[in-house]
């Protein structure tokens, strides 16, 4: 890893910790209701997404809340591209996103 990559990694690390500190508090119980819309694809074992690319949708149970929040916010802003996920995230508030992230991150239950 050269000096530039190291510097980039360092900045990303600082940004990641800063972002982690600024999270809205998520409510997993509220997230359970709000995640009903996600379950149509993410709640089915091995469900395959057919558009825009064909591959199984990712498993979300047990995922890190900070990562889930970042993903949804990136889809909402268009920084991360996926036609269906950009459409889904467009209607979510910061609180909705925090709640949904808390729900998927919590425990090992269904």
């Amino acid at each position, binding site marked *: 890893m050269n000096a530039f*990559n190291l510097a980039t990694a360092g900045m990303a690390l600082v940004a990641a910790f800063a972002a982690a500190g600024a999270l809205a508090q998520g409510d997993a119980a509220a997230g359970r209701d709000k995640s009903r819309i996600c379950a149509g694809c993410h709640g089915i074992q091995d469900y395959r997404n057919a558009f825009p690319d064909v591959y199984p*949708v*990712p*498993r*979300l149970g047990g995922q*890190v809340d900070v*990562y889930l929040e970042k993903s949804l916010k990136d889809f909402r802003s268009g920084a991360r591209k996926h036609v269906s996920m950009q459409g889904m995230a467009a209607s979510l508030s910061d609180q909705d996103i925090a709640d949904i992230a808390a729900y998927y991150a919590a425990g090992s239950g269904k």
Partner: protein
Amino acid sequence: MKRITLMVLAAAALLAQRAVHAADGLEAGRKKAEEACAACHGKAGGKPVLPNAPVLAGQQPEYLVHALKAFRSGAREDPLMGPLAKSLSDAEIRDISVYYSTLPGLHTKY
């Protein structure tokens, strides 16, 4: 009868060879993952060290392949994952993805 025995033997040999290839891939995936991914995603991909790094253990293998190729092509942007994915071959991406998918971690939640 002789022909059937031969066919059975040939099929068994083919299966054994496949199993060996799969085991090789898994071992190669584990090695590469420990070298390239573990520093941020945690040992065995179950407990990420970097706060916004996702859990990889138990993820859908094809989803991981899709994500790594998107980072590699630049379709998905990330200051850390972009440069890392650019150093990976198709075979390495497949091996790493299959390796993580075999570990206990994420689950389908609804």
